[in-house]
């Protein structure tokens, strides 16, 4: 059975086409202003890569911020359900999933069978979400994807005094004006980000194994800082791009007939 999942997020849209627990094709694009158009475009790319057409997909579920606006899905599933399921596929031993998205952060605790036990979400405050890093990367004048490599070269990371993205942005500007090394400021940004995420994780009480998904998981600076703060190693996601977790979860739930209306 060929199924698909489409995760339309605030910043990126992801699509995955799967068959018997294997990924046939996938794609990640920047979200457009119209969630429906984002969904069409990303699913089109994933299908092309899989060498398939939409007609060959038996079921497709939507998830993410824009899930209600995806035209071709048979139903939708919550982000928590999809991310929990997707992370479990990526890291079968995962009991705690930390997903840092473009505009939110979710922490999901799973039981031994992979069922969601508890979860916590921050979608109210930009601090501790991908948006925080995006703002800081812009101030630092570097690409978002370069932050991890930048902070790896830091000698003595700065400490950002503020939590709020708006105030922290002013902190970063001040550090740069004071001629602090950009690597040290970048590391300070990643550490601040990790501190905020660790706060949310602490509220849930993490249980091993812990894995991290979402675009921010690709930033090694944040991942290492988070490991230090939690005193736990993060289980590496190697099976696929960690940003695909939600879409993978949606495709798997579609195969299990677990989509909602």
């Amino acid at each position, binding site marked *: 059975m060929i199924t698909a999942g489409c995760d339309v997020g605030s910043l990126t849209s992801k699509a995955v086409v799967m068959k018997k627990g294997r990924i046939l094709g996938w794609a990640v694009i920047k979200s457009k202003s119209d969630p429906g158009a984002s969904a069409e475009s990303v699913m089109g790319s994933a299908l092309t890569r899989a060498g398939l057409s939409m007609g060959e997909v038996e079921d497709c579920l939507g998830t993410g911020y824009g899930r209600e606006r995806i035209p071709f899905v048979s139903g939708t599933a919550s982000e928590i359900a999809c991310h929990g399921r997707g992370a479990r596929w990526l890291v079968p031993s995962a009991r705690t999933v930390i997903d840092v998205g473009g*505009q939110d952060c979710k922490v999901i605790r799973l039981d031994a069978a992979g069922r969601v036990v508890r979860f916590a979400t921050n979608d109210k405050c930009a601090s501790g979400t991908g948006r925080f890093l995006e703002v800081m990367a812009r101030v630092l004048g570097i690409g978002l994807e370069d932050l991890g490599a930048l902070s790896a070269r830091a000698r003595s990371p700065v400490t950002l005094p503020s939590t709020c993205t708006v105030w922290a942005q002013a902190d970063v500007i001040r550090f740069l004006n004071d001629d602090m090394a950009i690597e040290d400021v970048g590391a300070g940004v990643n550490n601040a980000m990790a501190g905020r995420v660790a706060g949310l994780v602490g509220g849930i009480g993490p249980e091993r194994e812990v894995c991290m998904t979402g675009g921010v998981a690709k930033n090694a600076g944040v991942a290492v800082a988070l490991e230090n703060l939690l005193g736990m190693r993060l289980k590496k996601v190697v099976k696929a791009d960690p940003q695909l977790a939600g879409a993978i979860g949606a495709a798997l739930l579609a195969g299990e007939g677990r989509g909602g209306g």
Partner: protein
Amino acid sequence: MAVAGCDIGSLTAKAVLMEKGRVLASAVIPVGPRARESAEAVMETALERAGLSMSDLARTVGTGYGRKRIPFADRVESEIACHARGAWWRAPVVRTVIDIGGQDAKAIKLDDRGRVIRFIYNDKCASGTGRFLEIMAEALEVEIEGMAELASRSTQRIGISSQCVVFAETEIISLVNAGRSRADIVAGLHQAMAGRVASLARSIEVVPEVALTGGVAKNPDLVRAMEETLGIRLAVLDGDPQINGALGAALLASEMDPGSG
């Protein structure tokens, strides 16, 4: 002899000169990068308006974010003490002072003799501070001074769902792109701002009469939004609400034992 109060905020510097319980002159200027120079400049302006020179002053009390860097201050006082004193002097019926500064917001509860009973402070999150409106004005490409007038032309206020400044900025940009009227957006922003400040104030209980101070209090539509949110009329203070802290500092200077400090 005359006394002075000097309030160096994050965005503006204020000075008030008093003699025998009367305000002689006041001044408000934007702060520059150096707090010390801003303090000197605002004091000079106020002195000039009063036809006085520095040597005519018996005492000066400093307050605000940059209070430690006012070279001519005989003493510094907390912002809470100054705002409480200033509002109480203007209207002794006041039991709650809500001050919205450029980068913070505070609520102060007074007893029937004007003494501070409780206070609460937000300087952690930019939402509900002057910075919120400043960033929104930039995003809307309107002057912050023109926001009240713009809101007065609103026919259908738009609810703003984001609390976070960063998310609200994105939200209003999409509203503008969707062709919604700036007047309706600004009215919605005032309501959102009022909601945020009111919830801060409510955490120490809002006892009438309530005075709103700070530069934002000059915005009649924000005053309206605060009144609507709190369900009460705000006390009317004579004079500029923005100089309240400096006024309180001048009053505290006049009450200082000449031998101290």
